[in-house]
């Protein structure tokens, strides 16, 4: 590939890519796409892919076998999308290797395995298969970032360009000044997707205002929380979208230096993003004098070593600089003194991924999505005993009940909903009677929950509130960076008290000690992570006070999870 010299060259290239894309879907050969991402690999997608490859060759079917990214439907992995000549593409779920021969033979016979089909990519039902968009998992979603998820090959810049990629960057580069870009982002009221919800436009604006040079733009793809996986899925399925957002960010800040800090455990995400960067360099969308303009941009990928704290802005910057990842005191804020003491604009992966559509369609259009204070769409992930696990992209403002029971399909057979843990490990749970709260930044916070990065954990009656609180606290205790006293020493103290309660040695005063200690930890901790560390515990105590009472006063664990009886017996010296 030669570097594209100017805008015309890009337009020509895009037209060719689009033509290739259309030819792909118009010919009389089969097109079979297999979703390959870390979640589907775990469920055997690579084996499915190899099996398909073999069978197609064996059967002599003229086919294009493609690898695409994850489409968010973790419950249906591994999935295979088949377009037979003359028919719309149909998506089949849970195609493990043992199903592959059946599927191929059926298709060869011209049949459709409608019992395995998730839906057809058509507006009308096809051979008993509903249109994919009417699948209950997708029907309520509004997909901007995940629009091409599972459709394009994440390792192909051509696919991305064919689907309209880098149009937003070109629009910004050739038709807008950096100030106008910032103004659009500001008008969109896009709020940071990492958890704190700080308006990105305002951050970019203050980044522009700071005079020092050079400046840096950093994508935070660390995503270290135990129950969130939206960013890695996004990077695995559409890395160019993030890259385009980062490019626009660099252009808005008029700086040639961009970083993406990706958690080291997200191996495939790192690989695919690096590949995207390589392709963009090759095509001349990165490098010096991009498309013949005076704008240059260089992007580096840095990976983390597995410390949760490195997702905190300033700790992340120390990690990029090669130092121990620990937060620092603020002010100065990162937009004043970040990487190498220079202004640094840091946003979440999802935030950057939202930028291209804002630039293309305008901030006002984006602001019309979602609620007034929380605009746009949000990627949410869920865990727990629900029917349809996965990543969903919803418009802000959908109620939690709709999200859990319609999008994610409600509880599985034999499980009764007890609560949903919000905000990862940084906030409290919601009980069933609180589920009508809209999923947005402010409403959840009012109830003691938190939107955070959009990771929810649904739990049922078999989960003990004390035990679950202990799990969440222990995460914070082990992931404390050890810098500040309240977080390093306070969290272990709370975990120890919880252990005491779990083991049946709780005292009524313990709850007061927890409240008192938690208050100090929240007040005194250095960074955001310490300041919210006791929140899940306080939330559990507020939502399920009766369970804590049962542990302490009745020495009984209602869910029968805690080692309360055995411990008490051992202590009593009984046999």
């Amino acid at each position, binding site marked *: 590939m030669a570097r594209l010299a100017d805008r015309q060259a890009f337009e020509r290239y895009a037209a060719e890519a689009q033509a290739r894309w259309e030819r792909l879907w118009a010919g009389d050969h089969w097109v079979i796409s297999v979703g390959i991402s870390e979640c589907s690999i775990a469920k055997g997608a690579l084996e499915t892919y190899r099996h398909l490859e073999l069978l197609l060759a064996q059967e002599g079917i003229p086919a294009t076998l493609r690898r695409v990214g994850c489409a968010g439907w973790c419950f249906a992995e591994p999935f295979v999308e088949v377009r037979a000549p003359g028919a719309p593409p149909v998506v089949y779920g849970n195609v493990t290797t043992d199903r592959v021969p059946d599927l191929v033979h059926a298709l060869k016979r011209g049949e459709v395995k409608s019992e395995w089909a998730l839906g057809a990519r058509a507006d009308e039902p096809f051979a008993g298969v509903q249109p994919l968009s009417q699948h209950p998992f997708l029907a309520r979603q509004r997909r901007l970032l995940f629009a091409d998820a599972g459709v394009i090959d994440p390792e192909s810049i051509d696919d991305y360009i064919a689907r309209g990629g880098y149009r937003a960057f070109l629009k910004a580069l050739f038709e807008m000044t950096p100030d106008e870009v910032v103004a659009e982002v500001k008008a969109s009221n896009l709020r940071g997707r990492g958890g704190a919800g700080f308006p990105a436009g305002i951050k970019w604006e203050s980044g522009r205002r700071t005079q020092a040079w050079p400046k840096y733009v950093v994508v935070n793809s660390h995503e270290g929380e135990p129950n969130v996986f939206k960013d890695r899925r996004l990077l695995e399925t559409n890395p160019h979208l993030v890259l385009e957002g980062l490019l626009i960010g660099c252009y808005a800040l008029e700086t040639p230096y961009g970083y993406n800090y990706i958690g080291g455990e997200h191996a495939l995400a790192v690989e695919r993003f690096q590949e995207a960067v390589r392709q963009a360099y090759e095509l001349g969308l990165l490098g010096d004098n991009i498309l013949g303009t005076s704008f240059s941009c260089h992007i580096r990928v840095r990976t983390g070593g597995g*410390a949760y*704290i490195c997702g905190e802005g300033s700790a992340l910057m120390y990690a990029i600089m090669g130092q*121990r990842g620990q937060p*620092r*005191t603020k*002010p100065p804020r990162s937009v004043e003194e970040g990487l190498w*003491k220079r202004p640094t604009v840091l946003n979440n992966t999802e935030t950057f991924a939202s930028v291209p559509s804002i630039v293309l369609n305008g901030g006002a259009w984006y602001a019309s999505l979602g609620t007034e204070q929380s605009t746009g769409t949000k990627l949410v992930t869920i865990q727990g005993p629900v029917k349809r696990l996965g990543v969903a992209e919803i418009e802000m403002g959908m109620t939690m009940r709709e999200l859990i029971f319609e999008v994610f399909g409600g509880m599985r057979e034999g499980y009764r909903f007890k609560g949903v843990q919000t905000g990862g490990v940084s906030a409290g749970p919601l009980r069933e009677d609180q589920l009508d709260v809209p999923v947005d930044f402010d409403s959840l916070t009012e109830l003691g929950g938190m939107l955070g990065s959009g990771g929810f954990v649904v739990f049922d009656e078999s989960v003990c509130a004390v035990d679950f609180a202990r799990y969440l606290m222990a995460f914070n*205790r*082990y*992931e*404390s*960076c*050890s*810098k*500040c*006293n*309240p977080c*390093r*020493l*306070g*969290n*272990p*103290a709370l975990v*120890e*008290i919880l252990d005491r309660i779990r083991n049946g040695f709780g005292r009524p*005063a313990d709850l007061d*000690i927890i409240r*008192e*200690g938690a208050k*100090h930890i929240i*007040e*005194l*901790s*250095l960074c955001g992570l310490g300041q919210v560390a006791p929140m899940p515990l306080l939330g559990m105590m507020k939502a399920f006070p009766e369970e804590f009472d049962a542990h302490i006063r009745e020495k009984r664990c209602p869910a029968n999870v805690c080692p309360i009886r055995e411990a008490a017996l051992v202590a009593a010296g009984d046999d």
Partner: protein
Amino acid sequence: MAVGSPARLVTVTINGQQYTVPEGMTILEACRMVGIEVPNLCYQPLLRPWGSCRICTVEILGRRGGLVESCAAQVRDGMEISTDSPACEESRKFVLQMYLVDHALDCPTCDKSGECYLQDNTYYHNVYANPYRRPKIAGPYKHLSDLIDYKWERCIICSRCTRVCDEVIGVTAIEVLKRGLEAEIGTAYGMDLRDTTCTSCGMCIAVCPVGALTDRKFAHHPWELDATETVCGFCDVGCTLNVEHNRGLVRRVTHLWERGVNYGYTCVRGKWGYEQVQHPDRLETAMVRRGDELVAVPLDEALDLVAERLRRYQGDRFAALASPDNTNEENYLLQLFTRAVMGTNNIDRLATRSQGAVDRALLDSFGLPVSTNSVQEMFTHSACALVVGPSIGDRAPVASYWLYWSRNYRETKTVVISRDDYPLCHRAEVWIRPPEGTEAAVINAMARVILDEGLARPAVQSSTFQEWVASLRDYEPERVASATGIPIEKIRRAALLYATGGRGTPGTPGDEGYPPSVIYHTLAHQDGDVYAAAVALNNLALLTGNAGRPGAGVIAFRGPANAQGTLDMGCHPAFLPGYRPVSDREARRQLEAAWLPRWSATVVDGFEPLRALPATPGSSLEQMIEAIEAGQIKAMYVAGSSHEFAPPIEPRLLSALEKLEFLVVEECFPSPLTERAHIVLPAAMFMEKDGTFTNADRTVQRLRLAVDPPGDARPSWWLIQEIARRLGYQLAFSHPSLVLQEVTHLTPIYRGIIFPRLERGPLTWPVRGLAGPAEGAVRLGATVPGGGWAIWMEQAFGGVESALQFDDGLSRERVRFVIAEQATRTDEER
């Protein structure tokens, strides 16, 4: 710390009282400034705010208030601060309770007990119960090295140690390992510190607020110790040490934060050098040679003998070598003894050839063998540092600390030219590793780049400049690069960085030119001929206008603690005290008036009182060797200073000394000198005497007696006076302060430097009178009103300028470009 420009002031209310403090100060500093103590554990002067202990929490009152960490939050105008509100107290109590969950509380056996911040605060905040109490977790002692121990359960992970190691020492030998409660201090892969980049400076122990990092050589209770503030005698940075001693022995050295030129920080020699002072090998008795053997004799007897023998060698048959480790007062007395008693100018320093070459280079270029600027300007003015020579981290460690510090906090740029591989090389913008003997060629090539780029702003426009430019024709950067194997880009970049004050690109300089660049060099510690390289550096400074302004200049570290002061005091064959030439009749007359009346009238054994001071320059060290070989010099007095950190004595000198008829050696350790001596006088070392040292940047500081010298050992000033008296010359100074008083009186450059003022802190000569402010930067000017030569003194405050004028009758320019003949040698060899 000296602050260049006064900051804007803001008004804050602290605990109901209004104060006006500089803007940009942290709340903690503001409180300290106005005398309100805020408890703190992780705060350490000179390090960036850390904010980990949270015990310095204060409450900001008002609408946007709340609890903030005072060590990091800055004062704002109109801020209302409470340092002792109930919320603060409660928070601090919580913080302490948290620490005490696992803190060992083994205070009775802890070295730190009595000066432990955690102990103090626990007591102060009355923490006696702990609701978070549980059985303590304990860990074994970790022996980080043979000097340093670590105990996890005492550690509060304040990171002072790791920060000082990284930000100031620059070695990053220790770091916080692991996370959360399990965090601990340690080395990479659990290596012994001795196998890492660790310099064993002990600063991690020094900054530890608790007893987590401890000194393995120390086992006393702090409250049993007496403390004496003095100056280190092991290099010419001149660090202030707090020597703690009891029962006549130094037990440890501690740190007076924010005091002295080192702000309390020291290196391995400062921290553990006291072991040299009380080394079992120290000489404790006078010794006289009987046949092949040295026999111990009472000191009086030895002194009598010295006097009796020296009587025969008055005049140029006698020579003396002064020790650059001795105090100004002692060296002044030794040159006085040589000139006014023995009647000869045969006096020089016991220095290596490289030290001599560096002094000569400075003398030739700037008219005085002195560093032109102060190290302290690294904190305020210097924007770029060119560091040349063997590892400055070993040779002048504490000066290297400021290089790291200013890189961190002032973003100064660093260019290193060194064959040694030490941490600064890896942090520097450019590191050039020249093959042996090619330093001068590389530096001259840099000068060529600067000339070619049009960045030259010569400080002196004279014929020497043109001649020197012409002499550079052999140093085309391309040629030097190919001859030395150094990439030409490195030479170019080094030159551009230096010439533009760290900007690296020519661009347009501001009204006052490019920011200043300073040269630090340790060439005096390098073997071989370093004159050409030292001169080339001086020329580079003159070429770029980096002479005569703050933050610029050349600072040469010459090794021994008083290398500078020894020269200042006139231990030089051609210079009287204060660099007045021996040929200067006026100066001689003044000194004769002060010195000669001390002769008693009686003539003993043909030893005549002197009528006049010798007017012709005597033999330098090199010439002395020849003169001994030729039999012209027959007797010598050598003040030795052998200790572990002293440079080796030249073999040529040693073999010459064997030919002397009579050699008196004043020494603190058995050494090659004592082996050749006829009489050995035991001398005191720096912790055992009073006096002053003048460090590499001309800062005069007070030495204080902490412990008595061992056995019969006496300070040199006492020994010389005793010998002089026995020769009929009445030297009767009862204390070095009286000697310095005479120096001050007779030596223009030392005017204003007297003991009472030194008690308050260091003084950098030249100082202005007795009343004026002491800090000043020397400007060396070529064009001086009246045609003489002057040291220009620019006052740091108020911009007052004054000049100390000297007219030494020499016709040559005092500040000039010097061409070193041998500089081209290496180029041709290759």
